[in-house]
């Protein structure tokens, strides 16, 4: 059996985590901009916040400190509060219009 490459034994380098985080963040941003269902758009925002959490944890590990971990908890708490309010708002929109297509929610104009 050939020996495993060194990188699998040791901790992955910081850059891997940061690249993964950036990719997730970009996916979230793209989902926000291009998806048309309100729930999917909302999920994309959650993806972005979790990508940020990954960055916080990776940096925190690299710096050898634990404040980054605590920041990620703060982000989770805020994301949960946002989800509660956001879903309620989405519900009122649905009740008023019977649709979750974001393009159909556009009555406000000049």
């Amino acid at each position, binding site marked *: 059996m050939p020996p495993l490459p060194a990188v699998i034994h040791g901790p992955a380098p910081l850059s891997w985590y940061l690249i993964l985080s950036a990719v997730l963040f970009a996916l979230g941003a793209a989902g926000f901009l291009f998806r048309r269902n309100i729930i999917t758009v*909302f999920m994309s925002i959650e993806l972005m916040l979790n990508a940020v959490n990954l960055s916080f944890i990776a940096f925190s590990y690299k*710096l050898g400190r634990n404040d980054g971990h605590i920041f990620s908890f703060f982000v989770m708490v805020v994301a949960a509060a946002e989800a509660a*309010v956001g879903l309620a708002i*989405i519900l*009122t929109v649905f009740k008023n*219009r019977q649709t979750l297509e974001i393009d159909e929610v556009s009555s406000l104009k000049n």
Partner: protein
Amino acid sequence: MPASYFPAPAEYLRVLPEIVLTLFGVAILFFEAVLSEARKRIFPPLAAAGLGAALAGSILAYGSPGAAFHGMILVDGFATFFRVLVIVVGLLAVFASSEYLRRENHPGGEFYALILFSVAGQSVMASANELIVIFIGLEISSIASYILAGYLRDDPRNSEAALKYFLLGSFATAFLLYGVAWIYGLTGSTNLEAIRRALSGGGAPPLMLTGAAAALMFVGFGFKISAAPFQIWAPDVYQGAPAPVSAFLSVGPKAAAFAILIRTYQTAFGPVAGDWQPLVWACALATMVVGNFAAIQQSNIKRMLAYSSIAHAGYVLIAVAAASQIGAAAAMFYLAAYAFTNFGAFAVVTHVARKGERYVKIDDFAGLAQRQPAMAAMLTIFLLSLIGVPLTGGFCGKFYIFKAALDSNLVWLTVLGLLNSAVAAYYYLRVLVVMYMKDADGPAEPLPAAGTGMKLAVYGSAAATLLLGIFPGLVLEFASRAALK
């Protein structure tokens, strides 16, 4: 060592306004559940009392200035200025809303609780000295504001405004947070002064990465202050939200967002000011142009005021671009003058809109001067101040901003800013012309006289607008001393 985990009494004193606001907010929610319908009339006075107590609390807190909670909160003149400003705006919002909510058959206590929570968040933002606290404050303020924007939940306009505000606001927050994560990774700290030290020392992280992180954060701040190109949400939200809420949103959260923008960029990113100045320069210009030229084409007055508030964010960004102490002082003064002026204008719109907000076209103001001359006169004061006519707060604010810009050699931006204010005069004057020179076509629906709360809000805003215009020294002197170096 554990002793340092217990904050000193002075540290609690320094977050007194936030404590008071939260307690009153929770108390109102509690009473909302237990009181009978008839007793629920006490909510507006109770909320006003809470804001009054918080106002006293912020002045008390200023009596022992300094840092609290391991440097996360910093109570200084700058923080106190913005705390007082957002609390007074909250007070005006309570006065302007009570009549509106009764008119729309939604006189719930939670509205006032949400105003208090939102103001508490803005107060945290004003005194935050650390990026995570800034984020928390911003979210406390924003989450409450999202609900306020959709408060009349059976009105499709309200729910659409809330949805747009919520989605775009959370999107922007994610960018802000990503920038914070990178600043944390690059400098090893989220404390603004520690970041400043890390950026100014010899071992500063690569400017490229710091710049990218600062730019990500600027996206977040830019959304909250409705700076171009992040302003798209503002017209829809201000048009769709209940009018008193639009009044509140267009001044309170905006002032607090400017407070954190100025504090972050001048304290933490001060050492690299030369690198972000051009970005803010371009943003200020784009914001003014987009706001003013879009406002000209509007026929809905709430939407027009929304675009006008975008343009005013552009003027304040000129002062931010100056990146100097006098620039910060000018921004502070302008935000105070703008807060009273814009709130007042929206309050008059709230009054004229009547039940169901059916009269929000500019043409609906025809004949207002004959029907309610006092209200027309007040709106005239606000519009003149928004134009920047002498003897109003708006004039002094613009004067100090352009002076600060000239002191920092931003000659072109000053010229373009002046040209923009000339353009802006057109759409404000149009409302005056409609109000004084046109008669209402056909028999219009009667316009009931304003109640006590609305009168307090409108006359109070007008008095503050004139006071800031005639005696600007009162506030400017404090702002110059309190402005960040």
